[in-house]
C-alpha cells in the first residue's frame, strides 16, 4: 500500500530558497491586482478559499488525514463572526477573533472525536460531523436558517481601515491570507511538521520511536481547523453574508477538489487549485448543474491520471519542492 502522497514527495532536498522566491513572486502578483483591472471581489474570494485549502492541505498533505468536513470550520467561523459583527456590533478585528475562537473550539471537539479512527473512517466521521452541524445550523435561530445572516457591516478595522472601500478590504484580506500562508509554511518546516510527515509515511514506526502520534494528529487537526476558521471569518467581509452553503458537504468537497487539482502535499498547490476552481465557477456560472458534472469529471481525471496535481507535476518536472 503506497501512501497517499507518495507521488508528491519532493524529489530533491527541500529548497527553502526556491520556495521563498515563489512566495515573494506570488505576494507581489497578488499585491498588484488592484492596479491590474482584475475584479478584486473575485480575487478576494479566491484568497479566502486558498487559505481554506492550505489549512486543509496541512492535514491531508502533511498529516495524511483526509477531512471531508472542512467546510464546518469555515461555516462556523463565518456564522460566529457575522453574528458578532451584526448583532453585537463588534469591530472587525474582534469579529474575526470571535470566528477564530469558535473554529478553535469546534476543532477541539471534532478533533477529539474523529482522531480516534484512521484512514477512510476518519473521512467518513468528519463528513458525518459536518452534516450534524449543518442540521444544527439549519434549525438554530441565530443562523436564520435558509436565509442566512445577511447585510453584515464591514466597519473600520482598528478604527482606521475602512473595509467598505474595496481596495482597503482587498489588502486586509491579502495580508490575512499571506499571514496564514506563512504560518502554515512555518508549521510544515518546524520539528512538529517533520514528525507529522513521519506519521504520514509510517505511523507504526513513528509510534515505535516514542512519538505519541495521536497528540500530533490532534494538534494538526486543531491548527488546520482554526486556520480554516480564519479563512471563514475573512470571507464574511468579502461576501457580507454567512449562509448554509458554507457548511454544506458540497463545500467540503470543493475544498478537497481545489487541493487535489493544485497538488496534495505541495505548498503552493492549494492556492493554484483554489484560483482555478473559483475561476471555473465564475466562468461557468451560466451552465447550471453542469458545473457539478465538470467538478466531478475533474475529480475523476485528477485521481486517474494526475495525482500530483498542477503544482506537483511542475515540481516533479523541475525536480524541486514547491
Amino acid at each position: 500500500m503506497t501512501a497517499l502522497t507518495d507521488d508528491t514527495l519532493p524529489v530533491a532536498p527541500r529548497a527553502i530558497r526556491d520556495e521563498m522566491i515563489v512566495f515573494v513572486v506570488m505576494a507581489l502578483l497578488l499585491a498588484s491586482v488592484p492596479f491590474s483591472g482584475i475584479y478584486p471581489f473575485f480575487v478576494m474570494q479566491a484568497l479566502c478559499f486558498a487559505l481554506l485549502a492550505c489549512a486543509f492541505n496541512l492535514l491531508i498533505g502533511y498529516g495524511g488525514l483526509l477531512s471531508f468536513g472542512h467546510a464546518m470550520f469555515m461555516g462556523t467561523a463565518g456564522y460566529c463572526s457575522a453574528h458578532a459583527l451584526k448583532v453585537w456590533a463588534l469591530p472587525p478585528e474582534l469579529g474575526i477573533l470571535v470566528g477564530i475562537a469558535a473554529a478553535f473550539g469546534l476543532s477541539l471537539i471534532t478533533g477529539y472525536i474523529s482522531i480516534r479512527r484512521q484512514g477512510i473512517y476518519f473521512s467518513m466521521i468528519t463528513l458525518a460531523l459536518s452534516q450534524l452541524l449543518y442540521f444544527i445550523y439549519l434549525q438554530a435561530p441565530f443562523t436564520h436558517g435558509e436565509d442566512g445572516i445577511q447585510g453584515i457591516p464591514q466597519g473600520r478595522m482598528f478604527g482606521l481601515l475602512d473595509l467598505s472601500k474595496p481596495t482597503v478590504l482587498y489588502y486586509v484580506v491579502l495580508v490575512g491570507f499571506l499571514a496564514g500562508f506563512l504560518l502554515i509554511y512555518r508549521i510544515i518546516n518546524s520539528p512538529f511538521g517533520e514528525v507529522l510527515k513521519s506519521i504520514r509515511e509510517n505511523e507504526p514506526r513513528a509510534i515505535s520511536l516514542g512519538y505519541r502520534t495521536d497528540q500530533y494528529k490532534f494538534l494538526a487537526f486543531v491548527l488546520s481547523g482554526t486556520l480554516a476558521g480564519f479563512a471563514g471569518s475573512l470571507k464574511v467581509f468579502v461576501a457580507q453574508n454567512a449562509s448554509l452553503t458554507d457548511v454544506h458537504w458540497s463545500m467540503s468537497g470543493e475544498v478537497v477538489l481545489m487541493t487535489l487539482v493544485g497538488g496534495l502535499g505541495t505548498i503552493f498547490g492549494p492556492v493554484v487549485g483554489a484560483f482555478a476552481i473559483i475561476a471555473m465557477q465564475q466562468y461557468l456560472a451560466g451552465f447550471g448543474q453542469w458545473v457539478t458534472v465538470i467538478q466531478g469529471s475533474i475529480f475523476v481525471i485528477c485521481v486517474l491520471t494526475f495525482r500530483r496535481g498542477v503544482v506537483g507535476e511542475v515540481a516533479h518536472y523541475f525536480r524541486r519542492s514547491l
Partner: protein
Amino acid sequence: MQALYAQLLVGLINGSFYALLSLGLAVIFGMLNIINFAHGALYMMGAFVAYFLLNLGGISYWWALLLAPIIVGIFGMILERTMLKFLAGLDHLYGLLLTFGIALIVQGVFQNYFGSSGLPYSIPDQLKGGVNLGFMFLPIYRAWVVIFSLVVCIATWFLIEKTRLGAYLRAATENPTLVRAFGVNVPRMITLTYGLGVGLAALAGVLSAPINQVRPLMGADLIIVVFAVVVIGGMGSIMGSIITGFALGVIEGLTKYFYPEASNTVVFVLMVLVLLVKPTGLTGRAA
C-alpha cells in the same frame, strides 16, 4: 399511540435502506478496499431506472425490482472495469475521491434533466391499500418493503457466509494473491462484487421510489447517514451491518416521535457517542 407505531414503521423502512446500503458498502469495501461514495447516486439511479422502465417501457414494478439492480449493476461493473480497477494498490482515500467525483457527475447529469423536484412513482396495484391491525393501520406496501429488504439482506448474508462462492469471496478478501494462485479469477470476482454491492443499492432505490418520490438528490444526503451507520456498526461483519442498519432506523423513528427536532441528527449523535465509548465501532475490529 397510533403515531408512535407509524413512526416506528417509517423507522423500520429507513432502517431497511440503511441496511441494504451499508451491506453493499461493506461487501465492496471488503473486496475493493474502496468506500463507495457513489453508492447514494447509484441508489438514486435504481429509482430512476424503475421510473423509466414504467413510463417509457410500460414495464411494471415487479420487473423493475429485478431489472433495475441488474442494469445499475452492469453500469457499476463498467465503472469498476474502466476506472476503479486502476486504483488497486493506491491509498484508500483515492477510491473515496474517485467515487465522490462519479457521484457528482451522476447526480449533476440527472439534476440537469430532472431538476430537483420529485417525480411520482405509484405503488403497484397488488400492494395498494392497507390492513387495520387494531392498534394501527398498516399500509401493505410499507410492510412489503421491510419484509422484502429483510429477506434480501439475509439472502446476501447467506450467500457470503454459507455458500462456496461466498467462501471464495471471503478468502479473496483475506488474501487475493493466494486465492488467485488456486486458479480463481479474482479480478472478475472483484468486478462481480462491485456489481452486487451496487445492485443492492439500486434495489433499495426501487423499493423507495413509491415512498420517497424519485429525485436526483435522493441519495446525496442518505449516503452521509449511511456512512455514519457504517462507522457505528463497523464493516467487519455482514450481519453487523444489517442489524445496525435496522436498529438505527428504528431509533431514528422513535426520535421522530419523542423529540422530532433531533430526528435529522440522532444517527450522527449516536455515532459520536459510539466513537467516544468504543472507537472501533460496535462490531468492528481495530482498523
